[in-house]
């Protein structure tokens, strides 16, 4: 969010460098059931972000001291692959991915019916194959589809999307340039049936009006993304049903 650039991010017609208007998100793609070994999996693209999520569990919780006798815990590991960014990323968890893993775990724990699986762990692995601003949102969006694909009982499927600010305009779903040279980024995740917020971060500089406008756009975008999440699961299970009837 350094905000130092001569680059015009929003032109005089209100169009962004990738041709979108302020309220437009990048193209979404959601697929469920894309891996064999995992109990559930999903693939999500938000623009140039390419993200895989896999779910294992409920299964025995390791390390055991993390076990909760009253409910399952959701353990998410968010990982960026070394070739996912323009410079090579050093493999292994850094402080950023540890923080993202924590907040995604917490967001998912709200929707998973963890009380059904005391002492168990539900392990969620998010791998960022290609990053272009918005990987935590794409990762969480994929993870909740993967959880549903694994047949884990949930209150709802969580979509996540960011709003932000660049060139003084409040924008939906920032791309890399807007994220790097813009003035604010607000990723959120919601429970679509109630509009409750399960993930919220913000950095940059926003007035109350700008923030409220951004949240409104991000919530609307999340609802669109949620339709695609449901659609991906329907496609996945209609295919399964056909296979079964043969």
């Amino acid at each position, binding site marked *: 969010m350094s905000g130092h650039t001569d680059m015009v991010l929003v032109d005089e017609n209100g169009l962004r460098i990738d041709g979108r208007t302020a309220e437009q998100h990048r193209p979404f793609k959601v697929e469920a059931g894309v891996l064999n070994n995992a109990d559930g999996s999903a693939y999500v693209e938000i623009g140039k972000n390419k993200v895989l999520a896999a779910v294992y569990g409920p299964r025995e919780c390791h390390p055991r001291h993390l076990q909760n006798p009253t409910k399952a815990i959701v353990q998410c590991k968010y990982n960026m692959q070394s070739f996912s960014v323009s410079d090579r990323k050093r493999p292994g968890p850094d402080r950023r991915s540890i923080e993202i893993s924590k907040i995604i775990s917490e967001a998912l724990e709200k929707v998973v019916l963890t009380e059904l699986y005391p002492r168990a762990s539900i392990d969620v692995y998010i791998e960022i194959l290609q990053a272009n601003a918005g990987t935590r949102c794409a990762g969480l969006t994929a993870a909740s589809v993967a959880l549903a694909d694994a047949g884990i009982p949930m209150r709802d499927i969580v979509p996540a999307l960011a709003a932000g600010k660049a060139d003084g305009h409040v924008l939906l779903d920032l791309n890399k340039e807007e994220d790097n040279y813009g003035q604010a980024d607000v990723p959120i995740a919601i429970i679509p049936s109630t509009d409750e917020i399960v993930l919220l971060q*913000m950095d940059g500089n926003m007035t109350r009006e700008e923030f409220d406008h951004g949240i409104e756009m991000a919530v609307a975008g999340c609802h669109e993304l949620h339709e695609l999440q449901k659609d991906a699961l329907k496609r996945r299970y209609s295919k399964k049903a056909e296979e079964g009837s043969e």
Partner: protein
Amino acid sequence: MTEMMSEIKRDHMMKMLEDGKRLDGRGVTDVREIKVITDVIESADGSARVKMGKTEVIAGVKIIPGTPFPDTPNIGVLTTGAELIPMAHPTFESGPPGEDAIELARVVDRGIRESGMVDVEALCIVPGEEVWMCFVDIYALDYDGNLFDAANLAAVCALKSATIPGEQYGKGENKPLPITCTPISITEVKIGNTLIVDPNFDEEQISTARLTVTTDDVGNFRAMQKGGCGSITLDELSLCLDRAVEKGAEIRKIIG
């Protein structure tokens, strides 16, 4: 940071909150008494020891010359770290920072960085070659809840008191670290359907969601972080933002 709590105490706290009361006698938006002492460590270039009620935190700043990052050759370096040392609470363990400490440090860092509190461009010594690197390290000393705001306050006060040690390194005169504003974070947690400001340890234990909101001198938002396994509604978010602006201004007045 979890510990068992008796159900009778939990129920009692919940019941009191329904009437807008807290076990320690505070109202829902009351911040505990804040005590700040700066320049407590002579070996540091800036330092502050902060008490919020029974939570106590120390922050120290070290400023040393170093090489700039290649993509920002004329800009100084600013990093924030935090450690939850075993001295501060029986549930804290020694070893490298865990996810709680990392989240704490990153949320404090975001408020300081995004508000532009430190004028990092003024930390350039020789463009492309040498800049001042400013390390803020925060240690929890005594933990009774709300480390986020105590750590933010300690870091901010330590930075405000910091001096660039030019003479020590033969880089000109000593001068104050250039400061542009005072970012203040306000953390609230949700217990049942009530949001309370500046939670103590027991309140954190029975809370479901946490929201930290950092504002600048004019009341704009500079950083936010939601934590915890619960959710917050849009109306609750709005309430938190109002309170963050109001309480932030109050605290800014206290620390001057």
